[in-house]
């Protein structure tokens, strides 16, 4: 198999929010920049984001970046790095206003300023009361964001490679990154993109779980590529679950449904949240509701043939209210549960929603391993771990993350290139590895079926590393996932054609998913505490370990290395850039 080489100053993999924001920085600095994407840029998963982007603009009431910072540190259950969190919250206004200048049609107040709405976990005055901090563009925030930034890139002459799948990092013996190998889906041709700067913005990997709110495209390709090139993945045990995904489909049912009076019920019809959260009931925070639901199911009070979901009931609401206040919910119920929610309750389960971990970076967007910068390699967005979300992300903070760290990774790359970093001689041995991987897939006989292997992985993750984690299940899960990974190493595709061979694309995606799944299971098994989204039943709430969080032993980031499934740890950065440390406290709302 052969390949050709193309030279650029910078190559960005990913054209979602993070990739597009970074590309603006590089192209506008006059650097020759290639952006690769599996799909047309404005079909990236960022489109799905509706809630908005956080910034303490204070347009409707007083707000301050320091309050936002406090909320983010607390939300992260103190696993977030306080330097990066301060950086993000201080930069929020700047990047949102910039986006406005790029043409983003934000909702507005009568006085013309950006309209802001409240969102879970965002408070004023260091946790006192909810504050209006989220900026949105109707129910199409992510979509409008991508459009504005795509247009800006077109003007700046960014060169897009649409329907190209990046396959592997090109990394030399000194550990420097020189670009990526990629396949043109239309022809099956392989090209080595030889670059002075390589930036990953490949999004999340929510498809490792069986039940996920993520679109099929979220296969963690950037994480798989980094892991294969010897770069560790950080904090992969932390995944946010949304309480209400449609059972069997995953489609998200917004929190607004419970906000309008929706009630969760078990098989006996009982409003079980009254037992778990007597005050907030169905409106308790995401993790509390998710855990209550899983407890009901585990104790045999789930609904349906397999007793594996609970019900979200809005039949007591006025149909007019449902249609007016909760548009789209009825269609989702009809399409994916075969249920008309005006007459019957909806089957729901806690569903994987967001990946907090990723490729380790600093707040400049450089990829770092134990403070050591990997030359030529940058990452931003959901694939990266700066770490601002720590053990749990606040809603609307990830669109902010894309903008702030997309921009800062781009700026750092520009500065590094302007200092004169040259193309190093192309490390062809890395490229040979990619070719061997493709060759293996093309010639495999009697191998494993891609669809079946993926399903086995997803079921294993769901059962062994779901919302609520148990020591024995995690231990079994490690063995199971390693077994699945053996199958993934010998997948076989029947269709060997070159043109838009979706079977090949999916097999290559599975190579990445399995790295993320393995990292998750191994990191989760090892962390013997509860923190944020990682909740173990054997971690107890005591004075020294509030909510099961063990700061004495576990206030540290996990680093998983693919080679030998080795784990290392690194300290959490507790020192912000300019303000005082936000001291450890029990996380309670």
């Amino acid at each position, binding site marked *: 198999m052969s390949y050709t080489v193309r030279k650029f100053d910078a190559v960005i993999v990913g054209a979602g929010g993070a990739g597009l924001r970074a590309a603006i920085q590089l192209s506008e600095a006059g650097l020759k920049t290639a952006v690769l994407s599996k799909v047309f840029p404005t079909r990236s998963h960022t489109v*799905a984001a509706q809630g908005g982007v956080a910034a303490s603009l204070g347009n409707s009431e007083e707000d301050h970046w320091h309050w936002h910072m406090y909320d983010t540190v607390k939300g992260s259950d103190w696993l977030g790095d306080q330097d990066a969190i301060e950086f993000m919250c201080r930069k929020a206004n700047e990047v949102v206003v910039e986006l406005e200048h790029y043409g983003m049609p934000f909702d507005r107040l009568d006085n013309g300023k950006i309209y802001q709405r409240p969102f879970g976990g965002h408070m004023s005055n260091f946790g006192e009361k909810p504050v209006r901090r989220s900026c949105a563009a109707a129910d199409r925030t992510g979509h409008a964001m991508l459009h504005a930034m795509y247009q800006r890139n077109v003007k700046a002459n960014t060169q897009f490679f649409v329907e190209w799948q990046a396959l592997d990092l090109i990394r030399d013996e000194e550990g420097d990154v020189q670009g990526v190998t990629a396949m043109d889906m*239309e022809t099956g041709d392989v090209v080595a993109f030889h670059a002075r700067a390589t930036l990953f913005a490949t999004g999340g990997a929510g498809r490792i779980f069986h039940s996920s709110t993520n679109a099929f495209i979220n296969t963690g390709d950037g994480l798989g590529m980094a892991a294969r090139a010897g770069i560790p993945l950080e904090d992969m045990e932390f995944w946010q679950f949304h309480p209400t995904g449609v059972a069997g489909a995953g*489609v998200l049912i917004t929190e607004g449904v419970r906000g309008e009076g929706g009630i969760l019920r078990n098989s006996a019809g009982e409003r079980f949240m009254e037992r778990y959260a007597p005050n907030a009931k169905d409106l308790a925070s995401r993790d509390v509701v998710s855990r209550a639901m899983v407890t009901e199911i585990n104790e045999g009070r789930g609904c349906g043939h397999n007793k594996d979901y609970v019900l979200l009931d809005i039949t007591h609401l006025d149909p007019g209210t449902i249609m007016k206040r909760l548009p789209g919910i009825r269609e989702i119920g009809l399409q994916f549960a075969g249920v008309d929610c005006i007459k019957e309750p909806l089957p729901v389960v806690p569903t994987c929603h967001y990946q907090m971990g990723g490729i380790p970076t600093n707040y400049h967007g450089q990829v770092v391993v134990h403070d050591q910068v990997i030359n030529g390699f940058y990452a931003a967005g959901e694939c990266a771990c700066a770490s601002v979300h720590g053990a749990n992300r606040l809603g609307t903070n990830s669109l902010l993350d894309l903008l702030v760290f997309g921009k800062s990774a781009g700026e750092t790359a520009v500065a590094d290139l302007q200092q004169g970093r040259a193309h190093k001689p192309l490390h062809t041995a890395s490229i040979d590895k990619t070719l061997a991987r493709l060759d293996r897939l093309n010639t495999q006989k009697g191998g494993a079926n891609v669809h079946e292997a993926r399903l086995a992985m997803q079921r294993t993750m769901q059962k062994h590393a779901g919302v609520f984690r148990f020591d024995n299940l995690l231990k079994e899960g490690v063995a199971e996932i390693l077994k699945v990974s053996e199958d993934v190493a010998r997948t076989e595709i029947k269709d060997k054609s070159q043109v838009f061979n979706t079977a090949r694309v999916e097999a290559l995606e599975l190579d990445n998913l399995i790295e993320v799944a393995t990292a998750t299971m191994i990191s989760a098994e090892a962390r013997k505490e509860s923190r944020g989204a990682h909740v173990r039943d054997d971690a107890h709430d005591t004075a020294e370990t509030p909510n099961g969080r063990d700061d004495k032993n576990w206030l540290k980031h996990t680093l998983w290395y693919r080679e030998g499934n080795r784990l290392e740890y690194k300290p959490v950065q507790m020192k912000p850039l300019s303000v005082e440390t936000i001291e450890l406290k029990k996380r309670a709302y």
Partner: protein
Amino acid sequence: MNAAAESAIDPRLGRLRWHCRRALLELDLVFQRFWDKVGDDLDIETADALERLLALEDHDLWYLVSGREETDDPQLQPLLYRLRQL
């Protein structure tokens, strides 16, 4: 499907399949059901209609597929009807 149709459709199939990868899970799921049902057996009219639908933005497409909005375009109606029944 006859031979003539096959040669006309075949090169498009892979591309159409890939273009069904969307930003919204809702659409991914509907199109997954669609392909599970039709396999490689797609007539030219359906392929043409599908191509036009797939050129829409994701939210607009979902509004049509879910029935929240209607179209009076006679070329798209039969396919939309099928997608809604899946």
